[in-house]
């Protein structure tokens, strides 16, 4: 009886059979892998496409010095077309810069209020509201810029045109603020309550808790929120096209009309002959935009990664 009989040894061979769970697990792994790879392939495909279209221009007519330093974007000139993108770059940058001046205080303020002060129903209501704002299509924002902001700016500041850097910047700022608020609020929520409790126990006031403990702890998420807002500003087309005045200009004040990179592509691409210099120059603008937004998103991503490491 005390002898160990062979039957009492568990039959590991039988246990180790591949059952349904095992197959399902493998199938899901394969599906997810295919999904991930195809997403990457699409992105590479898009990049290859715009590069290919712009390539001929880049290697022949393209003059880097003119592109980056000349404000003269005259692709349709009959005798001497010039492809200076400086005014467009400055246009996009000035609108985005102003937009961030508007959006950063708005969205951080809203995130702090929703995350740290609002409770219960108010908080839920505000979060829904912010998400609703984020869902407003950009053409609607453009419409607001065109039909409401335009006369308002003319009247308030007594300027001839209300479609300018100010208009587009404010519109773009309001447009980017909701998504920035959401991300900033998420990063505030990720700060453990224990930190707040510990600071409160030290006699910190609510503002001290927020400024000395919560914001520093959420720093990376907040930076990521701002960078994503910047990325959004650079990439936005419709609202900027409608609100900026769309005229080629090196702005000297916020009341000057400007033209954005994106808006230029959107407005001109339909009127060019496929394969012409103009067509390819527009694709070069696209490559440039792609690289900038890629860099911004990459930075945001690296910053967010920084959070997780901690």
């Amino acid at each position, binding site marked *: 009886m005390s002898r160990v009989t062979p039957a009492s040894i568990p039959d590991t061979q039988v246990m180790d059979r591949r059952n349904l769970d095992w197959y399902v697990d493998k199938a899901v792994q394969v599906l997810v892998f295919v999904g991930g790879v195809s997403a990457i392939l699409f992105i590479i495909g898009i990049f290859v496409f715009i590069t290919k279209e712009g390539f001929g221009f880049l290697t022949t007519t393209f003059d880097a010095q003119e592109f980056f330093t000349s404000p003269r974007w005259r692709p349709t000139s009959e005798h001497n077309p010039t492809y200076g993108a400086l005014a467009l770059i400055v246009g996009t940058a000035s609108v985005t810069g102003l937009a961030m001046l508007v959006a950063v205080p708005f969205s951080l303020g809203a995130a702090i209020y929703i995350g740290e002060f609002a409770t219960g129903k108010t908080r839920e209501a505000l979060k829904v509201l912010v998400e609703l704002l984020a869902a407003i299509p950009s053409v609607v924002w453009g419409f607001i810029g065109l039909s409401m902001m335009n006369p308002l700016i003319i009247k308030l500041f007594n300027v001839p045109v209300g479609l300018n850097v100010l208009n587009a910047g404010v519109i773009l700022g309001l447009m980017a603020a909701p998504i920035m608020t959401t991300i900033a609020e998420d990063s505030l929520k990720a700060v453990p309550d224990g930190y707040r*409790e510990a600071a409160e*126990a030290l006699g910190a006031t609510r503002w001290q808790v927020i400024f*000395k403990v919560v914001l520093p702890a959420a720093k990376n998420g907040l930076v990521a929120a701002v960078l994503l807002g910047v990325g959004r500003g650079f990439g936005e087309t419709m609202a900027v096209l409608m609100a900026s005045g769309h005229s080629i200009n090196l702005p000297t004040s916020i009341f000057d009309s400007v033209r954005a990179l994106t808006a230029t592509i959107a407005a001109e691409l339909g009127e060019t002959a496929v394969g012409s210099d103009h067509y390819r120059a527009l694709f070069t603008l696209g490559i440039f935009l792609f690289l900038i937004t890629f860099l911004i998103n990459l930075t945001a991503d690296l910053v967010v990664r920084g959070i997780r490491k901690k």
Partner: protein
Amino acid sequence: MVEADRSSAAETDEVVSTAPVKVDVRNLTISYSGKTALRDVTLDIRQNEIFGIIGPANSGKTSFLRALNRMDLFIPGMKVDGSIVLDGREVRKWRNVYALRRRIGVVFPLPVGLPMSVYDNVALAPRLAGIKKRARLDPIVERCLQRAALWDEVKDRLDSLGSLLSGGQQQRLTIARALSQEPDLLLLDEFSIAVDPVTTMRIEEVLKELKQELTIVLVTNLVQQARRLADRTAFFLTGELVEVAATSALFSGEVNDERTRAYVEGRFG
């Protein structure tokens, strides 16, 4: 050996019973959204004693500490009734609760190293109080870390992140932080939950020293820890104060309630 312990404990009893009252708690009742967590507790805590609070989970120990430093303000639904008089002044009459909290150090069950450097962790409270100069902060930081028995381990890495220290070190960092505001009342809530036995012993030694300078309320779920440290001990059970007495009496069987005897002897439930 046991005899010696008993007699020294008896001596402290006498010292404590003549010491002035630090916190006078009368008919304290605490509820959360109408659900009572602590019912009609009356007791006093004397100056320079270690006042132990023992009791199983859910007995209301943490709630008691929260009421002392007015953490109820930030907990929606938490309601405190009765009176808590600290140094002759009702804590709920303080208009500036921040000033009140600065006099009370708190150590939570799980170590909370704030995500800033070791130095900044300890310097936070003095900075909040307006001390900005490095020359004044340095000695405070060093002294608090010394008192928390952590200085030797971190003096070369004061700039590294506080949240990267080991659990036991972070708990001592928390104690150093609590001391940095020069409190005269120190509340500890099950501080040894996430700390190894050796570190626990070191912290216990620290507490015995600190007792000379301040009053300590020690909530613990380790009955033996209360026995080792507390001058007097209160036994809480499901929101009720079963009894409060000199620790030596409780552990030598001089109890008024059989439930206390059962709990301290470890045969409960």
